[in-house]
């Protein structure tokens, strides 16, 4: 369905709410916009939308706008919203579902570096079974082209012996690789 707004035509996907409900297991229709979630949200001021707006946008079916938003990537998963929601909606679970869909639909224009970071992190886990912080950070910095950010902190941590040079690979790595293989099919 298409509607006209002051900024031009906007597509509404009326099946979007059902999809998100299924993925997150949350009763999104219960929201009555009390905005308690947004009052306590630590990243709301840094994002394009607030959590209560995101819930409303799901109800409206503004799929494209949400999947391209910076909010879904800036959400730190602190769960304050869900702990305080009078209707028991776990908005962090909704955000997880939105991110998963955004990855699937390759709608990553909101905050490019955050998914790059998650990928670098998970690549490290798949390679060794544990995260090797030094090589994980190196991969992220190369791919995001932020090589020179935080050099002072990195140097200080290096001097303090806070980096392990070599990764610790687990013995039954096959089991972790199998988990990654199955998860990729989802």
């Amino acid at each position, binding site marked *: 369905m298409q509607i006209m707004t002051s900024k031009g035509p906007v597509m509404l996907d009326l099946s979007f709410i059902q999809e998100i409900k299924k*993925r997150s297991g949350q009763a999104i229709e219960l929201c009555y916009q009390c905005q308690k979630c947004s009052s306590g949200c*630590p*990243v709301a001021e*840094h994002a394009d939308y607030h959590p209560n707006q995101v819930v409303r946008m799901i109800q409206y079916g503004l799929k494209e706008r949400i999947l391209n938003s910076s909010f879904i990537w*800036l959400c*730190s*998963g*602190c*769960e*304050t919203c*869900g*702990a305080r929601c009078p209707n028991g909606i776990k908005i*962090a679970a909704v955000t*997880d579902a939105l*991110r*998963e869909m955004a*990855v699937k639909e390759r709608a990553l224009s909101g*905050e490019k*570096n*955050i*998914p*790059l*970071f*998650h*990928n670098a*992190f*998970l690549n*490290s*886990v798949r390679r060794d*079974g*544990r*995260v*090797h*912080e*030094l090589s994980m*950070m190196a991969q*992220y910095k190369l791919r*995001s082209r932020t090589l020179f*950010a*935080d050099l*002072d*902190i990195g140097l*200080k*941590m290096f001097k*303090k*012996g*806070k*980096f*392990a040079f070599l990764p*610790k690979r*687990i013995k*039954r790595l096959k*089991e*972790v690789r*199998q*988990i*990654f293989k*199955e*998860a990729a099919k*989802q």
Partner: protein
Amino acid sequence: MKIAYYPGCSLEATAKEYDLSARTVCRHLGLEMAELQDWNCCGATSAHSINHLLALALPARNLALAQEEAAQCLVAPCSACYNRLKTAAYVLQENEVERKKVEEVVGFKFNGTVNVQSLLETIYYQVGADTMASLVKKPLTGLKVVCYYGCLLVRPPEITGFDQTENPVILDKIVSSLGAEPLMWSYKTDCCGASLSLVKSDAVQEMVGLLLDMAAEAGAMAIVTACPLCQSNLEMRRKKPFSGIPAFFFTELIGLAFGMPEERNWWPKHLVDPFPLLRSLSLAG
């Protein structure tokens, strides 16, 4: 009781001092813990951000290992690991469809016998503040601190079941038993933004800045945490780098109050030098 210790990836590198102090203090308290053999990463924020099954199956493999070892308790010093392990155990317990899927992927049968605990809970509930107080050799008199619990220990409350959601107190009680003074403040469970620290440092600096300002307003000389991500983030993302009040791991303060000689190995690992504060209170030589 058989306790399996799950250090997590951060404690092998950036939070080495947490691992060192945790092991030393637990040995002293008579908490027999053996490291979980061949443990893997819990997946942290990254797994649950982009793949639901990965977010459950990675921690579930560790639950399977703990079951294999017949451990009754799986203890995680890191709040993020604790949260992921506890969430996986909760979902496997409550949701049959998810349980079957995860059991198949990980290749085990979940029996629900492993109790996931944060190290903070283990020390508080299995040792207790009174016993701790009786072991203090060097009371932390004059040390005013704010206790910072962060997000992942306390939320979601139906999963973690940790203390009180909006005003947890067990860390305050531990700190108090050591002779230090925990101050009242309203930011115990506000998020420090650690999961965004590397990728959105400007926003995180503001989040950390607020916590530090509020700690200062309360009159704190230091912040006490039970999470490697909070601790490093609190010391790393400052407007004026490496200055201001230090952030301690609670295990470091326990070791300090118990007069353990190993303490001298922990302080040099901090990004914010804690020596000036410790010397001013005659707590370090």
